[in-house]
């Protein structure tokens, strides 16, 4: 039998070593609650809601990002039962489905931090913004939530109508980071 050569995919949006690509469809919930509700909600979610600024906690496909003292952005796979799971917590909270409000963009490859720093003023050194760090911040003229998924990969969440801007800016920035 002839040994087959395995072809690999080449993403059309390669710019230098960094790629800028749309994230898969996801379920997203904006969760608001006071601190006394955190244990029950954590149990309902199956992960410990982060309480430290700029931090996240993930369990499987589910990631909870600390956005503010009483606010989390929770992202899960497209078929997730996030809202229903939260309701099981039986404690005072607000869960609003924002799955379609946001668009996720994945920036990955060596130099991804430079690409994001083309428009985001945060210190993205691993010391200041380690893997798993997340924060609501700005990118160019828009607001984003930035999540570092590995040393060289970030997830950017922005509102739907700002996604063309974010995507275009990131591509421009990826061109620059490659220079």
């Amino acid at each position: 039998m002839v040994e087959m050569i395995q072809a690999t995919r080449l993403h059309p949006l390669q710019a230098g070593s960094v790629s800028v690509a749309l994230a898969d469809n996801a379920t997203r919930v904006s969760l608001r609650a006071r601190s006394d509700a955190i244990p029950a909600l954590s149990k309902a979610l199956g992960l410990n809601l982060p309480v430290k600024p700029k931090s996240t906690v993930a369990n499987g496909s589910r990631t909870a990002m600390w956005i503010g003292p009483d606010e989390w952005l929770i992202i899960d796979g497209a078929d997730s039962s996030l809202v229903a799971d939260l309701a099981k917590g039986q404690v005072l909270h607000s869960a609003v489905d924002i799955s379609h409000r946001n668009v996720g963009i994945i920036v990955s490859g060596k130099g991804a931090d430079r690409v994001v720093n083309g428009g985001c003023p945060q210190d993205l050194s691993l010391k200041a913004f380690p893997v798993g760090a997340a924060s609501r911040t700005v990118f160019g003229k828009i607001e984003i939530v930035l999540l570092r998924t590995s040393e060289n990969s970030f997830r950017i969440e922005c509102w739907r109508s700002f996604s063309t801007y974010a995507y275009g800016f990131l591509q421009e920035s990826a061109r620059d980071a490659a220079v």
Partner: protein
Amino acid sequence: MSTSIHSGSNRIAGAGRLTPAKTVRFTFDGQNLTGLEGDTLASALLANGIHLVGRSFKYHRPRGILSAGSEEPNALVDIERDKSRKQPNVRATVQEIYDGLKVKSQNRWPSLTFDVGAVNDVFSPMLPAGFYYKTFMWPKFAWKTIYEPKIRAAAGLGVVPGEPDTDRYTNRFAHCDVLIVGAGAAGLAAALSAASTGAKVILCDEQPEAGGALRYESDVTIDGVSGHEWAAATVAKLRAMDNVTVLSRTTAFGYYAQNFVGLVERISDHLSNPGSDMPRERLWQVRAKKVILATGAIERHMVFANNDRPGVMLASAARMFLNQYGVAIGRKVGVYTSNDSAYAAAIDLKRAGVDVPVIVDTRDDPSSAVVNEARSLGIEVLTGHAVYSAGGKRRVSSMSIQPNRGGNERKVAIDALIMSGGWTPSVHLFSQSRGKVAWDAENERFLPGTYAQDCVSVGACNGTDGLQATLDEAFAVGGGNAKSISATGGTDWVGGMIGSAPGAGADTTVKAFVDFQNDVTAKDVRLAVREGMHSIEHVKRFTTNGMATDQGKTSNLHGLAIAAEALNRPIPAVGLTTFRAPFTPVTFGAIVNHARHDLFDPTRCTPMHAWHAAHGAAFEDVGQWKRAWYYPQAGEDMHAAVNRECVAVRNQAGIFDASTLGKIEVVGPDAAKFLELLYTNPWEKLGVGRCRYGIMLREDGFIYDDGVVGRLAEDRFHVTTTTGGAPRVMHHMEDYLQTEFPHLNVWLTSTTEQWAVIAVQGPKAREIIAPLVEGIDMSNEAMPHMSVREGKICGVPTRLFRMSFTGEAGYEINVPADYGQAVWEAVYASGRPLGLTPYGTEAMHILRAEKGYIIVGQDTDGTVTPQDAGLTWAIGKNKTDYVGIRGLLRRDLVADGRKQLVGLKTVDPKIVLEEGAQIVANPNQPVPMTMIGHVTSSYWSENCGRSIAMALVIDGTKRLGETLYVPMPNGVIEVEVTGTVFFDEKGERLNG
């Protein structure tokens, strides 16, 4: 033929560090020239014997090259890559040459050697400082229309490019522990030291190559190698370290609050064929824990008559041209100095085989070491002497020398003259950081005094003299433990003089230049003082000294000293002006960087945007949103299309994209209580599944926003806001929630973009939608006007609102945004056979105006109360508190004489009033008439068969039936005051 001839006849074999074989061809005013790779334009021109490179700003005097650095005031040229990539006022001392570089001189016509504008030099006695202010005062109007445009055309330097810039510019934010500005001996030593601690270091330098003065100092040894070699090795070492970023060709131009420093990195200005991905410049916005300024010192010129002649230059520049570029600036070079440093240049030139006939030193008793060394090389040294004047016009040809205290004049033939008035520490960035300088009286210089930020200066910019002391200081500041560096040689940055040398005289005709770029002479500064300018701030503005693009890098101290002398006051009492960003000019491109074209500002499109575009919609910009404005069909103009759309909605049905409306989900057991406090309306008793139109006020009682609110559950409301108001309403609500009502258990989430909103309005709306909807009883009884249901449409979840902004029975279908287009297409397909017509924002505006529905921001302007707008019914009569309740009771808000919203019908129904037009009661009054109101909304209503308008009119509701007048340029329009509802006054169609 030797290779040196290729790159200019003044290139000295064996001198400099450029490679003779690497030639570069460029043009100057059309003349083909050759230089070497690594040349600046200045060094390449000088290599070719060209000193005359431009004409001065005011007098059009021939000008050459003064310096070898970014402080250059004279040698400004125009660089052109192609028609769209032109850059005026480029300093020839900064621009590196590349193959194909095209350079043009500036501020001359018809040519550089023969310039008509040079008559200004002849008439200069009539053009003293302040001339413009005194001469062009009357008539007043002429300043703007005649004088200023003419003066600006005659003055000015380069020509602004006429086409949009096609270069790319980018941006990078960066953070570091230590930012070091300047990669001379001090900066390099500080960087080595800081980097050795593991700190994250950014080192930037405006030159292509590190070293600063080490690049021309021929007598320096550091750690056993030449200064230049040490600099190159040190940079290589730093570049190899992970924690260090070295940025060459990068100017720190602005020092802002909290150690935020702006840098511009020039990436492709020196390249012949930059790649398409290569930006021209990159803006670095750096936040540093600590800033180390190692910005060095700038040599001053000597102030004497005709010191601006081409060929007269700073001694350090001549040395740089020789030792870095291998270029002799002349064959017979005179020297005029007031300190030791020019001797080094003279000695280097002499040793390179250049004739140096004489060193003229103003000092009676200079240090014997340098004098002896010069004399031992056969250079004549005249101490206690001054150069009274430079001869020649387009190139210096002689120097006139006299003893300081007068005596016989001697004229020496030369073809270049180098000078040194001493060194000015470069405290620009320190001053920008809000640091306060201190006067060093002994050495006549301003030094960093009080620091305002976490910043430290090292080396020459800190007044540290001597190379070893500089390296020691920089090493200590860097914080490293490594052994220090031993050095010999180098420049002493002390000595010299400030103010006018003996040759500048008190004479009123001699032109001894203080500020080359703005053509300010010593006599101008004295004149300013005589005219009563006693503060340096006034002197500066009167003479424009230091106000050119070079910010007086060479002229400030001279100007100050001359003013101080004329005032007979000590220099610190006259003051030094504050330095401001940018240190050197920065392109707009770098500042704007990515924010051009599509990225200038986000363009927000709705989920159904592609459908609108495919169906020929014209779009309207509403904030950042693109909204479908109207859908013209073949042969239709806007008017025809809008009329058709309006009629279709009333007769069949229309489909409208309302996705841009702001949406806020208000969730929590206290949600109703919170809305009670934010809106004038009552909410507690609103049933689940019902909607209500709400009015939101500011504290002052004026309308802030409006919108329909639906109750989805006891503890969950779906609030809508105006499109433009969405962000500020969210902030307004959040602000009150956090500061005034933190006890309430309620949270707000913006859901504007979660939902696509498809409005289907008109008598056939239900018939069109019903077949697509599952799980909702849409009958009139089950789902009356102003109700909301959750169910499914086209298989996806929907929040279906029965509501209307047209006066017709209608629905607003909310679906998760990504489904918007599919649902829209399904609704359109279902409705098409029934006459469903897409309509845009223009038809929407007209349809709502036919019903007298207001648009906040159009019919209100921030000074309109609910009563003024005829919305008293929307105020909960029994409510005891809500934002604005006390404001509404203000005496002036309940008094008579307020503008109230009314309808207007033109007596001639064909006339459509202009929005914004003023309304008067008596059109026969003389102008200015008493204006009693203005038109807020006005349209042609095809459904009414006439024009309709709304207006805010003083005591409007008492004027119903009155005739008022709208005076316009073409005549007065007669109007009748009416109610605001023009169509279906009883509102029966809503329930159809």
